[in-house]
């Protein structure tokens, strides 16, 4: 392991419409094993920051350095995505396969694993989130809490080093939330978590950064 940070964003600018920049000179550093809370008002650009980190959108100015390499183009981000798991706000966006096991195995299969390896990784990831035996369940018939856990499993199956969680406890009932938090608490990865759930942030993160007026502070 090197001591260089996992992610480093330098003076990142981004705007969907040029007159209203979402990020205006945002700096952010994430070190190995760090657990960071990312807070800010609705529409402040928290999700956009995640999307910049994995290259779903490209910055209009500034640099994104991930795992020691600067990323400028789509292709630069391919290795980054394999090592960074992004959990979406709406699990229905993330689970697109008919059955749970197919969805969880989708990432490993894309990474070139054999079917048997992919199946093993999927089973392992499902065990990790406490959903053993859910392999052949139909994804769209799962409860909201189960969908969130399966979505987490789809990410964990790719063995990421960093987790980016976009409002993971949003819309979950108390039991589902507690269950998710227990699972997340047991994970060793570095983590950045967007949330308005202060208790969850306090339980899972050590450092807090605030996104305001396009810049990060904290």
């Amino acid at each position, binding site marked *: 392991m090197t001591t260089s940070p996992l992610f480093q964003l330098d003076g990142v600018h981004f705007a969907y419409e040029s007159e209203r920049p979402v990020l205006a000179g945002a700096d952010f550093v994430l070190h190995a094993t760090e657990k960071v809370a990312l807070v800010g008002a609705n529409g402040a650009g928290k999700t956009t920051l995640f*999307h910049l980190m*994995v290259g*779903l959108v490209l910055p209009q100015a500034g640099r994104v350095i991930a795992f020691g390499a600067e990323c400028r183009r789509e292709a630069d981000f*391919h290795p980054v*995505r*394999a090592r*960074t798991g*992004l959990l*979406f706000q*709406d699990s*229905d*966006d*993330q689970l*697109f*396969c*008919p*059955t749970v*096991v*197919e969805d969880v*195995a*989708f*990432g490993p*299969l*894309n*990474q070139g694993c054999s*079917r048997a390896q*992919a*199946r093993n990784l999927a089973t392992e990831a499902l065990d990790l989130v406490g959903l053993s035996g859910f392999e052949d369940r139909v*994804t*769209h018939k799962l409860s909201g809490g189960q969908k969130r856990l399966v979505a987490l499993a*789809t*990410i964990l199956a*790719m063995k990421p080093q960093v987790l980016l969680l976009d409002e993971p406890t949003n819309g979950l009932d108390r039991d589902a939330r507690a269950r998710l938090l227990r699972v997340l608490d047991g994970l060793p990865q570095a983590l950045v978590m967007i949330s308005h759930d202060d208790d969850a942030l306090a339980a899972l993160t050590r450092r807090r950064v605030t996104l305001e007026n396009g810049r990060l502070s904290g």
Partner: protein
Amino acid sequence: MSTLTLSAGEALAPARRNKPLLDRLEPRSRVLAAIAVAVAVIACRTLPAAAATLLPAMALALLAGLRPGPTLRRLAALEGFMILTLLSLPFTMGGPVLFSLGGLHWGAEGTWRAALILTKSSAIALSLLALLGTLELPELGHALARLGLPARFVALFVLSTRYVEVLRGELARLRLAMRARGFRPRASLHCWRSLGHLLGMLVVGSLERAERVHAAMRLRGFDGRLHLLDEHRAGLLDWGFAAALAATFALLALLDMA
């Protein structure tokens, strides 16, 4: 075919008690059999042969464990589509006149042709309901992929089956929200405009969701190819089924030529 696709969302998972024979076939065999049966039935030129195809079609329905009630209703829906054509054929095709009604002449040629169309379409529809209608849609998608259909088409098909439910839910929520504010469908400009907005919201929402889903897929390394996890092999049962089908087709061909 249209009955098949119209009812696809809800009715394609009938109770599967003790797995009927057709359910134990490899999905690919069922797709190929469906194509073969359709081609064979279409190829029949004589009425006796076309009528005889109803027998194997019924046998397939039995082997698939189709329930008579819903199956008959779907067949009736299909025939309902064609009723006008079928009824107009005897008046327009000419041939010897069987009877006259006012100034209209009911001809033998058209009667024969209508009977041919009716028997053939029923036989094909029944076979398709048996062979494909009982197949889970994702299984059908995978079978098509394995048969070498373009990955793009298969991805489109599998994704559609997955998100049809989500879309339906979205539509239901929007309509509920409209009704909660007193919306009642009427023939007024306001009503048409509101329905237009509803449709627009649905399209915009779907487009955005599609973008998010695609983003999620890219993050997990999707590059346009869909790798399948399940493995299927044609077994003894599949070959036996193919042989039985081939024998039936041979008999039909003999009957058609006699």
